[in-house]
């Protein structure tokens, strides 16, 4: 319990650290939200000066940080320069779409990679293993971006899937069943891109973990005793590989908000990705920081969950430092 409390406190500290550094980095990068108005011959420098003052951009960095932190403490994450909307509202409506995509894809990747990893590890160096390993290497060599684009081209050529977005323009008028169908049609492509992107990494981890577990003396001897294969795999080896699986599980929670950014941009998925990219390029300060904070939260939470699980599963760690 004390451990959990300590971890929670540390998590909060990380969030504070991230917010401070984010402010600093955004400040270091050249340009700001209103810079591109300077190229508009129809906007006067006075207008720009006024807008900067209105949004507090003319203040010193520490002052802006303190102001921001104070309003966050009250639950207000600031305003977007571009949208004139509260950041929390803006981010949440998109984070939902991102989570829909990433949670499904993480589940799918798990469902495929665990059996596949066990299978490959068990048949190490035989054809089944070779083929799956070669397949995963080939997938790894394809940049996520290209993978997504290639799928998109497939969609265009075959006309089978929607080529981007999450819903059709007439979505609002559809019935419930048609609505689900519509979203599913839009869902397939980004989902496939994401699963294909994460699968090889998951698969390699599971396989490596299993190979290590299978090489443990206890399991070797279990084998020698003639215990059935499936029993060895699932009763002995899988729990022995739990450590690496748990860290991987933590990893997939931690990246729930960040894993799909590129795919979302390519497929016009209305998640955090396109908005964050636009906000980064436009220096929409509070939107960027809000999104970074939210994904940091997931990251910290993911690691926390993994550590707690590790703690529970592996009694040796409980003893603490020697």
């Amino acid at each position, binding site marked *: 319990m004390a451990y959990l409390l300590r971890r929670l406190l540390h998590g909060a500290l990380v969030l504070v650290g991230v917010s401070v550094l984010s402010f600093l980095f955004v400040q270091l*990068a*050249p*340009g*700001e939200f209103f*810079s*591109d*108005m*300077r*190229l*508009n*011959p*129809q*906007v*006067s*420098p*006075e*207008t720009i000066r*006024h*807008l900067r003052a*209105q949004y507090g951009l003319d203040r010193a960095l520490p002052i802006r940080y303190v102001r921001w932190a104070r309003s966050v403490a009250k639950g207000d994450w600031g305003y*977007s320069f*571009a*949208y*004139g*909307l509260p950041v929390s*509202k*803006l981010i949440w*409506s*998109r984070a939902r*779409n991102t989570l829909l995509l990433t949670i499904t894809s993480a589940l799918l990747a798990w469902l495929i990679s665990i059996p596949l990893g066990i299978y490959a590890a068990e048949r190490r160096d035989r054809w089944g293993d070779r083929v799956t390993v070669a397949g995963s290497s080939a997938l790894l060599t394809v940049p996520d971006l290209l993978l997504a684009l290639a799928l*998109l081209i497939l*969609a*265009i050529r075959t*006309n089978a899937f*929607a*080529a*981007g*977005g*999450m*819903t*059709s*323009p*007439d*979505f*609002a008028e559809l019935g419930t069943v048609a609505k689900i169908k519509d979203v599913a049609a839009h869902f397939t492509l980004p989902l496939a891109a994401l699963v294909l992107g994460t699968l090889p990494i998951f698969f390699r981890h599971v396989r490596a973990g299993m190979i290590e577990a299978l090489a443990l003396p206890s399991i070797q001897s279990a084998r020698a005793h003639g215990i059935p294969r499936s029993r060895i795999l699932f009763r002995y080896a899988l729990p022995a590989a739990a450590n690496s699986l748990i860290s991987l599980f933590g990893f997939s929670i931690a990246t729930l908000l960040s894993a799909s950014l590129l795919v*979302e*941009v*390519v*497929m*016009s998925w*209305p*998640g955090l*990705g*396109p*908005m964050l*990219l*636009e906000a980064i*390029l*436009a*220096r929409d300060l509070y939107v960027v920081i809000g999104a970074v904070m939210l994904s940091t939260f997931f990251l910290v939470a993911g690691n926390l969950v993994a550590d707690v699980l590790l703690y529970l599963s592996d009694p040796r760690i409980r003893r603490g430092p020697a």
Partner: protein
Amino acid sequence: MRRDIRLILVFLALVTGALWAQTKAAAAKEELQRTTGEVGQYGGRLVISQRAEAKTLNPVTAIDRPSREVMYRTQADLIHINRVTQRTEPALAKSWTASNDGLEYALRLRRGIRFSDGQPFNADDVVFSFQVYLDQNVHSPQRDLLIARDQKITVQKADPYTVVFKLARPDAAAERLFDSVVVLPKHLLEKAYHDGTLGQAWSLTTPPGQIAGLGPFRLKNYVPGEQITLERNPYYWKVDAKDNRLPYLNEITFLVVASEDAEAIRFQTGDTDVISRLNSENYALLAKDQQSRGYTLEDLGPGLEYNFILFNLNDDTRGRLPDIARKQAWFREVKFRQAVSAAIDRSDIVRLVYQGRGEPLWAQVTAGNKLWLNTKIPKPARSLNRARELLKSAGFTWNKDGKLGDHNGQLVEFSIVSSSSNSQRMQIANMVQQDLARLGIEVSVVPLEFRSFLERVTQTHEYEAAVMGLVNGDVDPNPEMNVWMSSGATHLWNLGEKKPATPWEEEIDKLMEQQIVTLNYPARKKLYDRVQEIVADELPIICVASPDILVGSKKNLGNFRPAILDPYTLHNVEELFWKPK
């Protein structure tokens, strides 16, 4: 039971009949505008993509392109620039008269027309709108437009349907100033204005009932990150040749897609009905599918975008940026700039960068601007010999490796910065690099992220040369004042000049000041022709090329008349209709 229903039906018929007669009577008093397009059919939805999400529907704060694309479909201006003819035409003002000295404009407004929420429109709305726009504390971008060059504007209501605008000095393009300055509904925004919360009004999450305008459409719903749907404004003030009230379409949906390529893909697959901004590469790709997928693409010829090479001629680099200041000795030498211009193969650039869908340029006005183009500007082909002669006469020499050196023996090397997000401008920079290598000049191309790039060009002046482009919103020279006047905020090559740095900049200043008050078109044209000549000779910017405007639409979209003025395709959205297949 059945009789009851019949009774109710009869009653309903009577009531609707009476209501219809009433609206008919009201319509008779309305001063509607009749359009000349093909008579169309009602119904349907138009889907179009946007490269970024619209941020607001507030005319006072909407400054980004996607917001404006949506917002202008919901609003209307007093005098409008016809995107096809490039001339002004009546809009909410059915007619206007100017005094002989050009200082007073009386605009007569359409009577009996209504905002999209059904509230009437009159002179009070116009006066309120301009009060807002001209208010120092609101800091609207429209204000910068209206009071540019020390102009002063006052607005008075003469009667409920006449408004008088008084100017402090004549403005040759005064009528054009009204374009895109939309009339706000006083009844909805007055309170926000007095509370000082106008900037936050009319965001996309505002309930549609609290937003109204005089445009052909009004907000229906908004799905964050995905789409905005507008619906037909039943009170719109235009009718077709057969007195059917416009617009024909029931709805327009703006879909958010994240990139230029995604826009092309969504159009190709038929998800969107119109595409306003195609690049030449995707044009060629999509053109192959025109027959099988039922759309047509159009090449409208060069638009108003001019891409150019800019040398840093800013004075504030001395001492602060010694390396750049040293190189500026070359850049300030006009023969050096002329040699660079002579060495650039503009036809290669048009062929490779725009796949032939563009025009080479030697001054800032493009062939798309028929009213103001100076056709006498010479268009010399690339000539390395001429470039070498120019360099030689300016005291440059070549060493034994063929590298160019100045009279101090310093090798001529410089960098060209450009925005990495604009692949076409990056390509131009790369081609210029190779062209100049043939003169023995070593150029390095530095891609910079857009805002980093802007910061260097407009703020820190820490660059040597840049490839960039400007797009005019209008054909008229007036919106370009800030580029050419030596004191202008976008006088890019030398910002913040206290007085003209060179005799030719002084001449441009004079010409630009003069053209703005010259009311007679031929005389004004002569002045601006001279400006173009000076730009072509003195090369403060080395104009390179202008891309064609490339658009597309579904085959059965009626009245589709794209034009090279922004917004290219949807300017007559009220007339668009779906032909039966």
